[in-house]
């Protein structure tokens, strides 16, 4: 794997830090006029998702991490693992609940998502920004209410619960922003 020096650090670069794969978020060059140059780096641990700040002496280097994002189709859940497939190669990958994490709320069979691979094994799963899911359970709404004020909880077919406007009914399909977990709109069948 390539080695990257502090002056090559830029947002999105994947590197190994403390034996974990990480993504650089921000790199600030700090140098007193008459002193040592440093790079203050904001970095996300791709295993834990935690963001930390770390300072490097300018000129230090880190080993690159073999991390790639691959679009895959979500196939099914066998109870222990969730299975994903790369469409054009039919190559399959499995990931346990720890890796899938919160993405599980938004994964519906056959939907596409992004699987982050580290050394060819899944490291994280990111759902599409917008997904369309059916409401399996919600209180009957009040007729005539078309505004968004208030709202009510609705359980979706993936098990996730989101707040929807009162007029949205059980059995309807809705569009949700997976980054915020917010209802966007109804989807006309």
């Amino acid at each position, binding site marked *: 794997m390539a080695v990257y020096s502090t002056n090559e650090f830029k947002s999105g670069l994947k590197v190994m830090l403390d034996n974990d794969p990480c993504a650089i978020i921000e790199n600030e*060059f*700090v140098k007193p006029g*008459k*002193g040592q140059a*440093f790079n203050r780096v904001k970095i996300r641990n791709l295993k834990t998702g935690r963001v930390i700040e770390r*300072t*490097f*002496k300018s000129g230090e280097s880190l080993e690159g991490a073999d991390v790639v994002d691959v679009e895959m189709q979500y196939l099914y859940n066998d109870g222990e693992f969730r299975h994903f497939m790369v469409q054009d190669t039919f190559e399959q990958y499995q990931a346990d609940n720890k890796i899938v994490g919160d993405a599980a709320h938004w994964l519906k069979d056959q939907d596409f998502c992004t699987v982050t691979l580290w050394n060819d094994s899944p490291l994280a799963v990111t759902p599409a920004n917008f997904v369309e899911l059916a409401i399996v359970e919600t209180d009957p709404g009040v007729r005539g209410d078309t505004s968004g004020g208030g709202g009510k909880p609705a359980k979706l077919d993936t098990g996730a619960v989101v707040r929807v406007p009162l007029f949205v009914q059980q059995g309807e399909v809705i569009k949700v922003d997976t980054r915020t977990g917010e209802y966007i709109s109804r989807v006309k069948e």
Partner: protein
Amino acid sequence: MQTDWQPTCSLELLRLRARLFGQIREFFAGRGVLEVETPLLSQALGTDPQLAFFSTQYESLPNQSTLFLQTSPEFAMKRLLAAGSGSIYQICKAFRNGEAGRFHNPEFTLLEWYRVGFDLPQLMTEVDDLISLLFFDYGLQVTQRISYRDVFQQYTGLDPLVFSHHAYCAYALAQGIPEAVTICADDHALWLDFLFSHKVQPHLGKNALCMVYGYPSCQSSLARISPENKGIAERVELFIKGVELGNGYYELTDAVEQERRFNEEIGIRQQRKQPVAVKDERFLAALYSGLPDCSGMAIGLDRLLMLLSACESIGDTLSFSIHRA
């Protein structure tokens, strides 16, 4: 179609820069300080191991020699002082290789001036006058003057003049910056650079000019050591809104001491396998012939423009930053 032919700053910033230069020239003209110009290309340059330089080949056939882009106009200006110029200033470019970031561009603009007969407090008063003038419309609070030791202790609880490896490490660990322990090891000056830039500097000059004076002598650079306290150098740094804006000295006039520091720095460069810096013999000769007692200050004008215009990045103040140069 390429769009990166466009300037990196707004046209308004071009006008602000022109106005700033005008104000500075008027300020020094009013005080009888002479504007000078010195070479950007020189045969020698500073030995400071923290500064990386640009070099180029000069073809004066049949000979070939290496010339350097100056990292600051300091040596040339001091040669003018030694020749009897009296107080002088200049606005010029300086070059530092590899320095690029939000506050750095490898080619940048300096205002540098020297006041014959001024000690450091007198120079600080002049800086205060100049900054007050330039920031007249910005409502800066009253200027603060604080010693390095006091400000360092205030924000870290550590004594910057007395190196305690144990106390420094304990502080770094408690602050969640354990990498400082590895990076700085037992290098006192490096510890000060790390802790000052991370833990002290961001607090300095909240909507005011903050002048930090009395640097530890391990960071004396070209300042003279205080006669009352050998641990302190007669050096001052300027900060506004946490941005390092300038650096000044009660200038070292002792040629023997200067040569000793050069040799020390050349040794450090060799140790670190850095490019060889050529000791500026003409500058040393000027010191041996006699540099008048003086104080000098350098202010980064691009950063000053950042503060005047509330720009986020130095590139926003430059016609073309290095990426578009």
